[in-house]
């Protein structure tokens, strides 16, 4: 349906935000384990670079002003709102998006727990929610409920009422702990 979706790599055209008349700067960073080098518009946000430039459409936008968390990604180990960051700030950074959560055609434990606990409805907040959860679990595999709530406090979800999400994060922590043993 969307003719451009399957293509990868930065593109010269077909972008709403990459203005061909703007000067370009060079960006190089790691995204989901791959090194990316691109000439970019210095004013483009990281969110738009990921979506428009790299065609990583999993990361969503719900407000564009840092208030909803739909655009959450992990940059250098921290969950951040990609809509608030300029792509140039990601120079040499290590970035993970929802597309980078699973490897080898296998859902990660976190994703599987979201599925089995029904931690999503419309799914629009889900990628951001997963990234906030991942960042938390990368810090601790023994999070308390208040810690989980705190970690996703910036991720709005209008559908689920959050409890299934909290349950899914908590059961992921448990499973990952067991796996480590």
């Amino acid at each position, binding site marked *: *349906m*969307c*003719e*451009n*979706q399957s293509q990868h790599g930065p593109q010269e055209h*077909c*972008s*709403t*935000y990459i*203005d061909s008349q703007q000067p370009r700067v060079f960006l190089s960073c790691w995204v989901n384990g791959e090194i990316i080098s691109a000439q970019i518009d210095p004013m483009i946000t990281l969110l738009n670079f990921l*979506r428009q430039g790299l065609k*990583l*459409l*999993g*990361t*969503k*936008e*719900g*407000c*564009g*002003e840092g*208030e*909803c968390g739909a655009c959450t990604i992990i940059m250098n180990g921290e969950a951040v709102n990609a809509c608030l960051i300029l792509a140039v700030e990601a120079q040499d950074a290590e970035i993970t*998006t*929802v*597309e980078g959560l*699973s490897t080898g055609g296998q*859902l990660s434990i976190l*994703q599987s727990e*979201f*599925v*089995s606990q*029904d931690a*999503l*409805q*419309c*799914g*629009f*907040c*889900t*990628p951001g929610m*997963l990234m906030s959860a991942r960042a938390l679990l990368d810090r601790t595999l023994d999070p308390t409920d208040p810690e*989980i*709530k*705190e970690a*996703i*406090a*910036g*991720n*709005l*979800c*209008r*559908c*689920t*009422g*959050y*409890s*299934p*999400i*909290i349950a899914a994060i908590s059961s992921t922590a448990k499973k990952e702990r067991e796996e480590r043993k």
Partner: protein
Amino acid sequence: MPEKLFRHVGKSPTRSEAIEKVSGRANYVFDLEFPGMLYAKVLHSPYAHAEILSVDLSEAKALTGVKAILTGEDLPYLLGLYMLDKGILARGKVRYIGEPVVAVAAIDLRTAEKAISLIKVDYKVLPAVLTIDEALKGEILVHKDINDLEYVKNVFFPQPDSNIASWNKAIKGDIKQGFAEADVIIENELSLPAVAHVPLETHVAIAKADPFTKRVEIWTSSQSPFGVRQMLAKALGISQGDVRVVVPHIGGGFGGKAGIHLEPLVVVLSRAARGKPVKIIATREEEFSQLPSRAAMRGRVKTGVKYDGKITASEITFDWDSGAYADYGVNVGRAAQYSGAGAYEIPNLEINSRTLYTNKVYSTAYRGFGHLETHWVIERQMDLIAQALKMDPYEFRMKNILREGSVTISGEIINQYSGRPDQCLAAVAKEIGWTGYRSKEEREVSFKTGKVRGKGIACLQKAPAMPSNTATSALLQFDADGNVRVMIGAIDMGQGAMTVMEQIAAEVLDMPLEKVRVSSETDTDKNPYDWSTVASKYTFMGGKAVTRGAMDMLSQMKEVASQILRCPVDELTHGQEKIFIRQNPHKAVSYQDIAMGYLYDNGNSIGGPIIGRGVYIAEGLTFLDPDKGQGLPALDWTFGAHGVELEVDVETGEVQILKISSAFDVGKAINPKLCEGQIIGGVLQGLGSAFMEGFKFSAEGRLLNPSFMDYKIPTSQDIPTIVVPILIENPQADGPFGARGVGEHPMISVPSVIANALYDALGINFYELPLSSEKIALAIARSEAEHKEPLSE
């Protein structure tokens, strides 16, 4: 009904589209792009009410990259669900701040934004209608041409030369007599502000108009692809076959995407841009201030009761501050006509429900439309009456609650298959340990600890609001390997329609669930018709259609099997993906062997692809009589109740929900986990309306909180400590497997139950939403000052 053993129904398989969604692969319209696509932006009205004197587009037109600019003057089309009162862009006049006046399509968003900034519009500012009372006064008219507007007659009742878009009435019995019989008459006024739906994906639409034909294709984040097709075709004067509407995954709807919104705008822009695809994405601010909300409402209620707690009469006026255009608003007003007295039997009643035009952002359906609002009035009033009678509000409710044989306000007789509100109420009361209001002394003791606790209860009901000829359909086809593809017209916006329909099809066909798949994209060119995914109607109606479609497949297969097995059809039965002879089960033929037609060893073949067809049209509904609102408005009632225990910090007014229990008589939970998901999510949305959400307007009618910074919705920090969903299953005789809808219901009566519990905790009654902590803290302080002692009654 004897408990039948089901293979899939009543189980909770995970939702079928979950993997797509957790992997980031699910496509939303927000994610779609087409080659050569243009981006649209609109210029918004800065005035609540003004004449457009002139528009200067010269500079914007001269900007490189601008491909189309349109104003209302270019677009002589009128749109509306029930009243044709809205242009695609404002024509001649603007009626709210935020209304689109000019639209631009350009090669990228920056250019479109730049072009918008270069447009100059001259307005003559007019006095505006900004409150319910100003609207009722009618000195200034929002629609001067109200007398000439086309509307759905006998369902809606616009009043001449007024701001009343529709005045719907219900009259039952004789209220004069009823009030004369009463021992006590209690009158109250309650109100609530407009709120926003807040889907995480804002409204977004893309259109491609064929420059050589009338054909238009639309991709939209909509709950009503077939509604969009119909209304757009009507507005543009083209045939419905010329319009294709495609809806992939949608990022939340809640009713806000049920009408027709941005679709016509991108269509006309694409036409003006010689067929280039045009995309518009509402910004979050536009989502608040341009796109429709839930109406504000004021309810005035007067109830007559006997000392023993029997209600004798009720007179209720609902006034809806519904904004500049009717949209779904008039139907919200109409919902109050047949459901506005709650789940109680009221022998003598008069309801007047007036949907009012005002110069504010217009309103539309929002999850359970009309019901959270009317139940705010009714369920508070039930507690206020109980207080006046010094009765336990539980007992008082039970005295008046609908039971078998009760007559509803539209004259419908509740029967044994209608569901049991009393059981819902009993279940939540038990769950929270309800024992009646606390005494004044108990309150005073706990007040000293700085944290007071209170409990509350409230009931609710809702039936799907729909035209009496609402219909849906399903097509079921086999693949050659015996898998089944189900095509429906509904949208799954997270409620789980696809999963539930898969369960139903697999159940009827007695197949493994993995072999049945409902397509996740709805395309009006391909999928069979469905009226609209609204009103918690789909499990019921779609469930019926899919059941019938699956049965159609079975009977087609039996026809073929009857020839193969040389056995009359009525001796055949099915199971294990086979049609077999009942008496002789090893004489069987598999679904797979019949799926595309049966091939004999000698090369002969019979049958052909098996395609099941199932339809359902609302049965037995009637128009409501225009004067008294009597008739059969809806298919099924889902009743429910909430019970809550909360704790208030007496200093800050902050409230923690310790436990909320919500029971619904769903008839049969096809997928209990999905039902519970609706309950947990819906309750929190209701808590948003209860505690924090509400539009604020300036004196000029400007929305003051159109952002997440200023308009808060519940976050993970605001959730109740415990939510206990309770599913009660008194089957609906004509529901699929006995099921009723429950998608919207969980948010209804949540604000009411909270305010009821606040009374129990504090001895203070609240009449206006939202119940912010400041409001609560102030009320506590005021009550202390007034009584010089805390928390007296």
